[in-house]
């Protein structure tokens, strides 16, 4: 697939003039604009693009400079409309209708990509611009102290999110400890059952695996607030005021993590080459030794990075901790008793807090959270790609979106079962 993509691209680069030639000859004749037509093909196209970019910009600034440039968003939108119109007209007159559509689509796709990624850069910029000074002021203080030391009108340097960091780490750690073993066992079951043979038991297990997979897919999409709701109704509410605890939050986070991690694990077990499994079984190793000694070690990098991605997702979740950990301005190290802080939850609570500097503290906490999630993401990617050099072909399977978002089953890359 990659090979053919690049060959199309190479073709585009070398022959883009030629294929336009065909289009143009079937469209309008280029000789209407004598002055521009004397230019070479590529220069005329650049000229069209630049002209239609610059002229509307100059016009808009000219019109609105005297009045107001209060709303950059509105101005940019106006510019975009004018730019697209003039570019469409120019390329239509020079190159014909088909080429015009192609040009417009190219611009639209690039603009779409920029619109998609601009929020990311904007968010990161805002978070670090406003958050890092809060962390940096009186440096480790913000990371180690907690909010009880700060009165409502105290400066940011008095506040801290140390309690929330510890809470997040404990809750996510507990959730990982619960969900990773269950996810691994389930993934092994799903993998083994889908390789079963055509006996009655084998087919029954395959059906069972299908059922479990269906349930996992359904649970994978559940809204995070539902996880909090369930844990609250089942565990927290019957215990009254003492019900809130880090462990309850860990339970809700487990509900969010389990389906994701299970599907990642299953995909990673699936891509282990069948020849390894067959070789091990043929040497007389029992099924369990094949799994523990051959398949899991082979899939190790993918399993670890999948687990870390699950943790990264849990760290960023707020809603599951809402009525479970409940938030606590003081430090509570014991996750099994009493309300506990959580980094993401703290941001939410700080925004609605009446204290003077609460929103600034929220930005500080957001910077810590983004750094933590980014760190986990980077570690997972590093582990994932360091094994990619060894097994580049197989990693492409594992890295596909279907696996990342746990969708659609891909066919066995190498089927070892008896079918």
């Amino acid at each position, binding site marked *: 697939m990659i090979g053919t993509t690049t060959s199309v691209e190479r073709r585009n680069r070398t022959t883009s003039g030629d294929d336009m030639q065909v289009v143009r000859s079937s469209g309008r004749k280029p000789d209407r604009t004598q002055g521009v037509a004397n230019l070479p093909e590529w220069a005329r196209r650049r000229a069209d693009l630049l002209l239609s970019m610059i002229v509307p910009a100059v016009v808009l600034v000219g019109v609105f400079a005297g009045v107001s440039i209060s709303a950059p968003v509105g101005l940019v939108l106006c510019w975009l409309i004018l730019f697209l119109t003039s570019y469409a007209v120019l390329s239509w007159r020079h190159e014909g209708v088909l080429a015009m559509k192609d040009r417009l689509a190219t611009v639209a796709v690039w603009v779409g*990509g920029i619109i*998609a990624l601009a929020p990311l850069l904007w968010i990161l910029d805002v978070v670090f611009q406003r958050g890092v000074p809060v962390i940096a002021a009186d440096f480790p203080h913000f990371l180690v102290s907690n909010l009880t030391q700060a009165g409502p009108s105290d400066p940011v340097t008095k506040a801290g999110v140390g309690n929330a960091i510890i809470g997040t780490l404990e809750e996510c750690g507990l959730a990982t400890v619960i969900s990773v073993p269950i996810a691994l066992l389930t993934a092994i079951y799903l993998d083994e059952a889908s390789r079963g043979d055509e006996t009655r038991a084998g087919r029954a297990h395959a059906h069972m695996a299908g059922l479990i997979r269906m349930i996992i897919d*359904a649970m994978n999409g559940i809204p995070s*607030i*539902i996880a909090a709701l369930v844990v609250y109704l089942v565990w927290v509410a019957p215990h009254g005021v003492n019900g809130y605890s880090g462990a309850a939050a860990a339970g809700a986070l487990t509900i969010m993590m389990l389906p994701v991690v299970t599907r990642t694990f299953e995909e990673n077990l699936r891509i282990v080459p069948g020849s390894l499994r067959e070789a091990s079984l043929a040497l007389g190793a029992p099924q369990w030794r094949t799994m523990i000694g051959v398949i899991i070690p082979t899939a190790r990098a993918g399993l670890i990075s999948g687990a870390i991605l699950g943790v990264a997702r849990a760290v960023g979740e707020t*809603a599951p901790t809402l009525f479970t950990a409940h938030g606590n301005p003081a430090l509570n190290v014991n996750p099994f008793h009493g309300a506990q802080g959580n980094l993401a939850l703290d941001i939410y609570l700080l*925004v609605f807090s009446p204290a003077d500097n609460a929103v600034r503290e929220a930005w500080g906490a*957001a910077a810590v959270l983004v750094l933590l999630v980014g760190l986990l993401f980077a570690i997972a990617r590093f582990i994932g790609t360091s094994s990619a050099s060894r097994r580049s072909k197989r990693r492409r399977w594992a890295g596909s979106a279907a696996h990342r978002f746990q969708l659609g089953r891909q066919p066995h890359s190498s089927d070892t079962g008896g079918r």
Partner: protein
Amino acid sequence: MTATDSYASRVPALDRDLGRSPVQRRNGPDRIFRAVVLAGGLVLLGGSLFIVGFLCDRGFSALRHSGLHIITSATWAPDAVPPNYGLLGDLVGSALIALLSLLVAVPIGVGTALLINEYAPGRIRRSLVGLVDLLATVPGVVFGLWGLVALSDHTDSTAAWLATYAKFIPIFRDPDHRYGQSIFVCGLVVGIMVLPVVASISRDVMSQAPRDVCEAALALGGTRWGYITDVILPFARSGIIGATLIGFGRAIGETIAVVLILAPTNTLTHDLLGPVGGSIADLIATLFTSSSPATENALTLGGVLLLLATFLVSGSSRIVLNRQARRAGAR
């Protein structure tokens, strides 16, 4: 393993496991192994069924108590006498936010997928993939904070600008609209949140489109946009629909960003730009802990409806994506 079966029929059965396929062996350790992994699967299955069953039980008790009124009424007044639990306003609000977010996420997501697959040169492509993945990891609460604090500066000025220069369009006329805490901004932010999901799935599906046909189209003098509309998009149609459904499921359940951005009034509204409206997830998040058992049950019913909506959406996306996978496999 038919080969081993026929082999087994020819050797004397010295060991009762001889000739059985590895999955069928009956020796001790392997039986324990299979039992343990099956137990893992059953824990997951049972837990999930328990969650759904428990929620349905609690939610439907509210439905039994106050009848269908709870879904058809738009008045949320739990403190009134008699209390009125109308979820309609929030149900509509959830759906509006999700639909608006799809208006953002689907065109831009598919465009980003096309950009990565067809337009961007190699080096840019790799960093684009990384950036889209990174966008997926930004926590929802950070999106909410950004939408509430940073984005609202721009929405305010844009609202004033539109009210001045675009008066001729009725919806922009109201000078008091500031957009900041509106359903529209919620839809925008949630749209950016589900964009990576839509982009990744459609990119995956589109990359399986037949390259030879694309190259043939180019060789015959077609344009790039020509083969995209005539080959890639028709091929990936099911996949894009599946991606849209998944995105809808994500968007309708999005909680924390909506809670932060929206000024909840829990009323039925068609005003997308003003600070009114509500969503089910938002209602549950803000009201749940401080409520009476009856309110709790009504909110749980809202949760059950949300859950059913996501199940419906993920089920149908599954069907559509399977169809796409079959088509890709058939090639």
